[in-house]
């Protein structure tokens, strides 16, 4: 048998389910792999070794009593450190939440537990999910398993790297402007941002409430489908979660690509696009045609406005969402302040990193009286125009395919001095959050430097099932996983 840790989540699940291996063995395999490679990757903020083993043993016990412990029974999963897990530190990559321990589980955590998943650890991230390289973590710089001198992407860089490095078969991330898809592309694993409202946000520490969604990373599209089936669905604790029924994503995976119309927006192949990325996506489009899909060029005319719109709305919401980190009730409080205003100022100045402070200031500015109409309100109007672009597009086509990112993973420090360059990493992904539709990044090729290139498959609202089945068809045609793996971690 191949090394256990190299298997996909779905493969591990079926071995556990058929009792060929125990849940404890699966978890131990992940722990051993983690111990071997984590010192070089630095994907985790903490590993819940004892809790994971005891959860795994409980699953085994349930199996031996003849019970069914659920659809993810015994499968280890890593959680981005922005999702609350009762009793364990949740830092959001920030100094301000150093030592903070939530009192409750996020809804997705509760659902994963009920499905028998083994909660393996919390993964590193850009502070408060603000960033595209995980370099904004206050704690450590996670490395890309394909090239340890490069970033894993962000903000869910720890989750993407943990899966890419085979430390866990599954991980949860959160995506506000590309924070799942961009690191998925950089790390060569599938990652899904769901339709806004598909997955409960309760327990997800908010960055930008109208954009944030939790979603899975896996080693295969099937892994994504299996985990989505567990975490999707309405939640009474989240008023913005949708009552739309959850289809059987796994069952629908085999529907293939044949009758689909695929749109390719010309605005997503701009002049500055890395030619290797463009070529890789065009190659996949040829394969899609060969598999029977109809591929046509479409236009999303307001695309150019997406990044400014995104950075106005996301920062506006963030400036308000992050107001609670004031040092009064929990988290970091600077010592020695003489009065309240000084306590606020010093706690927040020292507690937050540079990028977070920058975004709070941007967001505060665009909401200020006298500027609200020119920025926030106008951005909301542009958001409507962007939505309309996609509504029209989806009258013509079933799915849209674009590059996930304009380039492959960059080197540490390459973009940290130029926030605008960093922001442009989200150019193909942020629009999708503004529109609220689902999109998956699928690894499709390696660049000449041996770095993964991601392809973004975009679907209409609540079109995850169709999107996943199309992605699965492409995945099996491209066979990326069997052909490539990160060599940087080989002994």
């Amino acid at each position, binding site marked *: 048998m191949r090394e256990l840790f190299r298997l996909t989540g779905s493969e591990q699940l079926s071995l556990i389910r058929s009792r060929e291996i125990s849940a404890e063995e699966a978890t131990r395999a992940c722990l051993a792999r983690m111990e071997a490679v984590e010192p070089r990757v630095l994907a985790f903020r903490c590993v819940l070794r004892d809790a994971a083993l005891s959860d795994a043993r409980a699953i085994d016990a349930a199996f031996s009593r003849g019970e069914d412990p659920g659809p993810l029974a015994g499968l280890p999963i890593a959680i981005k450190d922005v999702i*609350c897990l009762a009793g364990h530190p949740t830092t959001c990559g920030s100094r301000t939440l150093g030592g903070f321990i939530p009192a409750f589980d996020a809804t997705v955590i509760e659902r994963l537990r009920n499905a028998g998943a083994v909660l393996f650890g919390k993964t590193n991230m850009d502070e408060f999910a603000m960033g595209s390289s995980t370099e904004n973590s206050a704690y450590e710089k996670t490395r890309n398993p394909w090239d340890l001198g490069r970033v894993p992407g962000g903000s869910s860089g720890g989750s993407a790297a943990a899966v890419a490095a085979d430390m866990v078969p599954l991980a949860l991330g959160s995506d506000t402007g590309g924070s799942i898809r961009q690191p998925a592309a950089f790390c060569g694993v599938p990652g899904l941002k769901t339709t806004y409202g598909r997955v409960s946000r309760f327990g997800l520490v908010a960055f930008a409430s109208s954009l944030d969604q939790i979603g899975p990373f896996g080693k295969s599209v099937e892994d994504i489908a299996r985990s989505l089936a567990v975490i999707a669905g309405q939640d009474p604790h*989240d008023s913005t979660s949708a009552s739309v029924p959850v289809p059987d994503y796994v069952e629908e995976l085999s529907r293939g690509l044949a009758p689909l119309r695929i749109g390719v927006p010309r605005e997503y192949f701009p002049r500055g696009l890395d030619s290797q990325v463009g070529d890789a996506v065009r190659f996949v489009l040829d394969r899609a045609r060969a598999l029977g899909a109809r591929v046509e060029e479409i236009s999303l005319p307001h695309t150019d406005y997406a990044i400014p719109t995104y950075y106005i709305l996301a920062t506006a919401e963030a400036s308000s969402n992050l107001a609670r980190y004031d040092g009064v009730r929990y988290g970091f409080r600077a010592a020695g302040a003489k009065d309240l205003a000084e306590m606020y100022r010093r706690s927040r100045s020292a507690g937050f990193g540079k990028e977070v402070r920058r975004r709070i200031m941007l967001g505060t500015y665009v909401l*200020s009286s006298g500027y609200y109409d020119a920025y926030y309100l106008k951005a909301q109007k542009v958001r409507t125009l962007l939505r309309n672009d996609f509504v029209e597009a989806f009258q013509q086509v079933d799915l849209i395919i674009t590059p996930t990112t304009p380039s492959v993973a960059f080197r540490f420090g390459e973009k940290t001095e130029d926030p605008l360059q960093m922001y442009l990493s989200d150019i193909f992904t942020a629009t999708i959050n503004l529109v609220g539709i689902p999109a998956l990044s699928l690894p499709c090729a390696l660049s000449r430097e041996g770095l993964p290139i991601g392809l973004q498959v975009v679907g209409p609202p609540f079109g995850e099932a169709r999107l996943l089945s199309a992605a699965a068809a492409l995945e099996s045609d491209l066979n990326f996983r069997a052909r490539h793996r990160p060599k940087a971690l080989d002994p």
Partner: protein
Amino acid sequence: MEFEPVIGLEVHAQLLTQSKIFCGCTTRFGNPPNTNTCPVCLGMPGVLPVLNRKAVEYAIKVGLAVGCEIRGRSLFARKNYFYPDLPKGYQISMYDQPLCVGGGITIETRKDRKRIGLTRIHLEEDAGKLIHQEGADDRTLVDLNRAGVPLIEIVSEPDIASPSEAHTYLTMLRSILLYLGVCDGNMEEGSLRCDANVSVRPAGEKQFGTKVELKNLNSFRFIQKALEYEINRQAEVLQGGGKVVQESRLYDPDSDTTDLMRGKEEAHDYRYFPEPDLLPLIVDQKWIEEIRAGLPELPLERRDRLVAQYGIPAYDADVLTTTRELADYYEAAAKASGNPKGASNWVMGEVLRKLKEEKAEITACPVSPDRLAGLMGLIEAGTISGSLAKEVFEEMWATRHAAPDIVKARGLTQISDEPELLAIIDQVMAANPGPLAQYRAGKSATLGFFMGQVMKATQGKGNPTVIQKLLGEKLKGS
């Protein structure tokens, strides 16, 4: 120059829901600090608000009662500012799309009735409370029990023309809230709070003057006094050739003055924007109609009905309709006794006096309306006198016994038997030859002395009407 004030009031009323507006915590007052809390109302990372439907129902109820238009679609917004009693760093409120707009409250002025227009009523969450500890370490403690308690903010138009109108408006508004059962109206506990906007202008002028916001108005009396002070202050500023500055001022009840709290430059920029964690609030017409169908009779309607139905004076009806429970009590007593005016006298007199004395609510009154009617029946039947009845009432209050039982047990039955009373009168006359002579010499005031003596001799049980008649005959001489 004559100046006239222009006043608008912003009233915050806590809604009497069981749980908070965005989480399941209890709203009970007086629990130990920070025990009525959960991650949601503590503003922990990762929490989300879920709207309490009852709070919306109560707000609609108030809106309907005061004639507002209830909007089918309204929007929560975040009001952003930093303060330790505000856990999230923003208050979830409503801004440019409130739940209720328009409407008005009719008040009774000395001259006539007047309608004070309303701008809007919206829903929001309350903040916590700060407790400043005086002493060596000068600490401030935060109690978040109140954080997240549902509030409605009722904003009036600048239609109020005097401090006493403001007082009347607030009294009527409070009474409406009590009738609807949506707020307990308790200003001491902060369930009802008021800010005022006030400006003055030369009498007859159409243009508004510069307004000043008054805060910390913790009782109706303070509101009236603060307004009086502030109107004078502004008039003096203008008279002296100065300009009123737009600012917020704090009322200090000890000195009965207002002091600058913050100027216009220091005014908060609240950076309102739509609350992304909540969907737009959609209220369908069917629900509104259901709520409308359940509305009780309101104070002014009831007052008018009491006057028409029972023929009692308007003043009585005013007092009796202060709260729904008091009016209910009165109506029950009026019906049971068949004597509406008598019932009104009793309720407004003895009942309210005792309640005030014991700081109790009418709902806790130990003498039920039926029992009160029973007592009134004894007077009417001549079994006891009015003055004795007050004593019996005291005892009913204390023992919760019925009037006839007390009268019987204490042998208080009134003596109306003429021969028995005549015998007593004879004794009294014989014992007081002096006053008798005075009376017969024309000093008729001495009649009162003889009344008192006879009542005393009967231990208060003598029927005063009969005694007066008999005394009249006997004293004139036989």
